[in-house]
């Protein structure tokens, strides 16, 4: 098995606290980012439609064009779907470009599927948001390495606001 995100920070952001393990039967909704195809070509097309000197400037692709270009290979789709169904995932739904798959699983199923993961309740942030995350890293079967970029919903916490009220105008502060 391998860890798709060994360099993802998993430490608790300031202001968040753990409320303990999640009940094994609780339902999770996890997002699987599937490996796309033809990204070189996509990059060339971005350049072509964004450069005013290009004959193709402004001739944008539709969502369906993008989907046709980058959607995961049949092997990737089949391998990931088989893996998830075998784990008992349900209520899976994809997007037009087919490169994301969101599924429901119980905590028990998810912790079996994503080796090493351990789901906890957390609360924090300016609006006391409740989230479920895993402070431990997860691993995927090596066979999935060519098919899955990462699994969303395990480690990253919601962002906190950076807008602030600065009582005095900034220049006064600079002068000070």
């Amino acid at each position, binding site marked *: 098995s391998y860890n798709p*995100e060994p*360099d*993802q*920070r998993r430490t608790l952001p300031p202001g968040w606290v753990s409320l303990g393990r999640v009940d094994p039967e609780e339902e*999770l*909704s996890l*997002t699987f980012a599937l490996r*796309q195809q033809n990204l070189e070509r*996509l990059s060339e*097309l*971005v350049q072509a*439609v*964004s*450069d*005013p*000197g290009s004959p193709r*400037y*402004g*001739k*944008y*692709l539709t*969502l369906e*064009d*993008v989907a046709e270009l*980058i959607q995961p290979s049949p092997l990737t789709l089949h391998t990931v779907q088989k893996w998830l169904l075998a784990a008992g995932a349900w209520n899976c739904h994809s*997007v*037009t*470009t087919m490169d*994301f798959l*969101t599924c429901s699983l119980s905590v028990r199923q998810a912790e079996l599927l994503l080796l090493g993961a351990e*789901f906890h*309740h957390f609360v924090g*942030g*300016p*609006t006391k948001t*409740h*989230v*479920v*995350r895993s402070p431990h890293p997860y691993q995927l079967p090596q066979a999935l390495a060519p098919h899955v*970029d*990462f699994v*969303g*919903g395990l*480690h*990253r916490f*919601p*962002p906190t*606001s*950076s*807008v*602030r*009220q*600065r*009582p*005095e*105008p*900034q*220049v*006064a502060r*600079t002068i000070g």
Partner: protein
Amino acid sequence: LHLGVTPSVIRQRYNLTARDVGSGTTNNSQACAQFLEQYFHDSDLIKFMRLFGESFVHQKSVAHVVGQQGKGLAGIEASLDVQYLMSAGANISTWVYSSPGRHEAQEPFLQWLLLLSNESSLPHVHTVSYGDDEDSLSSAYIQRVNTEFMKAAARGLTLLFASGDSGAGCWSVSGKHRFRPSFPASSPYVTTVGGTCFQNPFFITNEIVDYISGGGFSNVFPRPSYQEEAVVQFLKSSPHLPPSTYFNTSGRAYPDVAALSDGYWVVSNSMPIPWVSGTSASTPVFGGILSLINEHRILSGRPTLGFLNPRLYQQHGAGLFDVTHGCHESCLNEEVEGQGFCSGPGWDPVTGWGTPNFPALLKTLLNP
């Protein structure tokens, strides 16, 4: 004289007349997205426009809300986004994306990316106030999100991200201080917006750097070819360059543009609130002005602007007020003494090419 930034201050500074509003006859549209589980209230928007919006034609409500709007208190950032996107991009159909009520195991920003990959018709301009330290995110995640921005650019969506409010940032790598770039601001496929303030806070004068304005050089993405000339010029000519050990000189440099980010009035929970600051304010302002330019392009039968950066750098920032005074914050140590990069003539990693001068910007971005 003014006591803080309001729509009329914005419109005066960036040379928007009462005529510079959406025609209401095109399919033009714009959106703001925030992921703080915050809500905005329509009643606040109505009150805001009654207080500050009487001098220009504007829409009285948001056209489309994606994600639930709760019954809870309104958040300042959500209120700020909506009110200033609809003041700068006045009378243009506006969507609001917010993620309250999502499943606890989901990542709000990732859910927004899934929406982009699932909706065929989306607004042309998206302003997004979200950022994380580059070093806190896995490379698998950063690279994949960057690809999602490429998909959006190929479709002609204009994505504007706030550059962040910690200046150059600062962290310690094996005992040595370094600047700390932010993502998605550092993605080469989005347009990043920094922050400025008035030289004299109570007059509509020229703008200088707002010391919080995020900016710097990516440690993940190499410099894209479209900004090679501008950035090399800055690195050669800036008299205040920090030690090169603090940043990756070959990285994607940002921000690309800027707007006022200091001292805004916002109405939230029926209360007018002064002195709200951050690049979360400058981003919807710049986005609204791009929407106005899209309006003229659509009326002339042209495609919308799409991914702006290649054109912006080719035109060397024509149509923008160049900000040449001030530096943003960074590490508090004897070596750099809290100072990151400083602005200068042309492009710089604090305010990019500068702030919008609408009539001049319209002229340079209308054709082709």
